[in-house]
């Protein structure tokens, strides 16, 4: 069996599962947020009763992150629904906006808070729950009905996915980031190239990445239709997890006779900085071919591109430079935001580098990655052209239907901020 199959077999209390088989599995963690939490709670109460209790209060994690810094009345009402439910059910893991507990973007917060454990099963009411696969665990997105079912029973039916393997051979060149690799892979297999499948990442290039970069890779498997991303846990995984939690975990490896649906091999040195053109993440081309695209905005943030690794990369390029177009920085979480003051490049903090460069900094949340209410920080409200470290470039994804989003790595977005046109970051990194 593959890693994914082994995790699912263990959680189905069986010794063996086959791809394509429908099984019921036990859930380790259910995560929800302010957009899908309230409707999930609504279905839970309707189906299990007004006075029903959740199956296990220790296994439900509620991380409001989408619509936090807005005047929208409905958005505030929705967070209030979460607060009341948490109170009523006595849920210990709630990261309440407006308090010291507030975290920011759920997928990054789950990792920081030690919920991502090798070998475990996580369901979340957000399609980017697949991010957690970076920890050698099974994580996938579900809707509100499924989440309400898990909330009441701790179980869910699932079809065992076949596993596609992606091997990145060789050392990564210094200009290449996980974002470039995943945009290249999605460009190769298409936006539905991995539908129903697990995407496993392997090879020297993958294991040289830190945990945050591995999260970027797994984060975007949903953009190829994938059910989950997965990277075998190694020493880096163990170190990250042990620094954050005492919870126990189990590491799984592929059996020597594991069957893969397909194997895709890439040479790291042949992958170039990639940019996905509107309106699909599969529209990737080398950044150097888009020099003529003039930008109105650059955006660095989200679960995909708002971790401290992403901002260190951006700061390396923006140090002692001035941005030419409006440039927005939104840290994923408060922990990332705090590191803006502790991480330095040539003795300068990230916050000073960004401020000196003329960048606008916002508070941690999903912010403009998915548009959101009209007063959302960094939202594209007209026909702006934006390059962004986020995950989707669909029509109107970052706000107005007239806007256009190009997806790229933090290096490429930062280099483009300096010139005002889409720019291959090698022009700045090699100086």
């Amino acid at each position, binding site marked *: 069996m593959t890693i994914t199959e082994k995790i699912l077999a263990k959680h189905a209390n069986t010794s063996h599962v086959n791809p394509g088989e*429908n099984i*019921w599995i036990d859930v380790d963690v259910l995560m929800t947020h302010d*957009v*899908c939490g*309230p*409707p999930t709670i*609504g279905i839970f109460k309707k*189906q299990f009763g007004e006075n029903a209790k959740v199956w296990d209060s220790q296994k439900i994690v509620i991380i409001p992150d*989408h*619509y936090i810094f807005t005047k*929208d009345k*409905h*958005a505030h*009402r*929705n967070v209030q629904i979460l607060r009341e439910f948490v109170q009523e059910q006595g849920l210990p893991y709630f990261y309440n906006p407006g308090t010291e507990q507030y975290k920011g973007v759920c997928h990054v917060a789950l990792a920081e808070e030690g919920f991502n454990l090798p070998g475990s099963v996580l369901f979340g*009411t*957000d*399609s980017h*729950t697949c991010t957690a696969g970076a920890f050698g665990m099974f994580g996938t*997105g*579900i*809707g*509100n*009905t*499924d989440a309400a*079912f898990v909330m*009441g*029973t701790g179980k869910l*039916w699932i*079809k065992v996915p076949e596993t596609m393997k992606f091997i990145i051979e060789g050392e990564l060149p210094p200009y290449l980031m996980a974002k470039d690799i995943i945009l290249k892979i999605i460009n190769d297999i298409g*936006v*539905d190239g991995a*539908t*129903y499948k697990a995407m496993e990442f392997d090879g020297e290039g993958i294991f040289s990445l830190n945990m945050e970069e591995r999260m970027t890779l797994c984060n975007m498997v*949903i953009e190829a*239709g994938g*059910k989950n991303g997965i990277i075998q846990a190694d020493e880096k995984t163990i170190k990250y997890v042990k620094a954050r939690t005492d919870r126990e975990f189990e590491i799984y490896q592929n059996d020597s006779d594991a069957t893969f649906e397909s194997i895709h091999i890439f040479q790291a040195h042949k992958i170039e900085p990639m940019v996905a053109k509107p309106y*699909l993440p599969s529209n990737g081309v080398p950044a150097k071919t888009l020099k003529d695209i003039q930008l109105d905005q650059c955006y660095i943030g989200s679960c995909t591109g708002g971790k401290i690794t992403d901002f260190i990369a951006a700061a390396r390029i923006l140090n002692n430079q001035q941005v030419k177009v409006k440039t927005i920085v939104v840290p994923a979480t408060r922990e990332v935001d705090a590191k803006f003051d502790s991480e330095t490049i040539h003795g300068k903090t990230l916050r000073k580098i960004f401020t000196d460069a003329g960048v606008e900094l916002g508070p941690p949340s999903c912010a403009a990655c*998915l*548009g*959101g*209410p*009209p007063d959302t920080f960094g939202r594209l409200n007209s026909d702006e052209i934006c390059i962004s470290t986020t995950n*989707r470039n*669909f*029509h*109107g*994804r970052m706000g107005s*239907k007239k806007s256009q989003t190009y997806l790229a790595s933090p290096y490429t977005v930062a280099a483009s901020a300096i010139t005002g046109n889409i720019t291959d970051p090698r022009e700045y990194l090699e100086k």
Partner: protein
Amino acid sequence: MNNMISGKAYVLGNDVDTDQIIPAEHLVYNMDEPEERRLYGMYALSGVPPQKSGLPKGNIPFVPKNSDKSIYKIIIAGKNFGCGSSREHAPAALSIAGVQAVVALSYARIFYRNTVDGGFLIPFESKDSLFNKIRTGDEITIRQDMYILKNITTEKSYNLKSLGEVAGIVETGGLFLYAKRKNLISK
């Protein structure tokens, strides 16, 4: 399950994502409040670019202005329908607008699952791409037991794929009803 679904077709292309089906700014409405719930119908498919709204001509609104009900009961689409977000608000919005079935060449996984488990509408898969064979406004009937779609306007019939393993959940009307019937949870 009612054996026949009949109504006008609304035709869309490939890769219709959930941001097109219901843009994120509308996800704040409460499904359990009737006045807010109807807004999902009003904004269903409001993110589809005008030129791709109601193929082949385009520029056909799915829902009339200030209404929350569509005159189209069946959506015809190409591959990878519902890609992107896990928002269950997407199949819910289509259902609230009055859609009873989608017929697509293929679906994104989470949208398909939400549609089935939430019991919002029936997600049929066509054997061949139909979005270039059916026009918005054509009168359609779907014989569910036979998996046949008939275009009354053109008098042509097309085979649909069997619902396969999820047929049981679709027939009972969603995951909770299915689980109760199977005694997986108490009634």
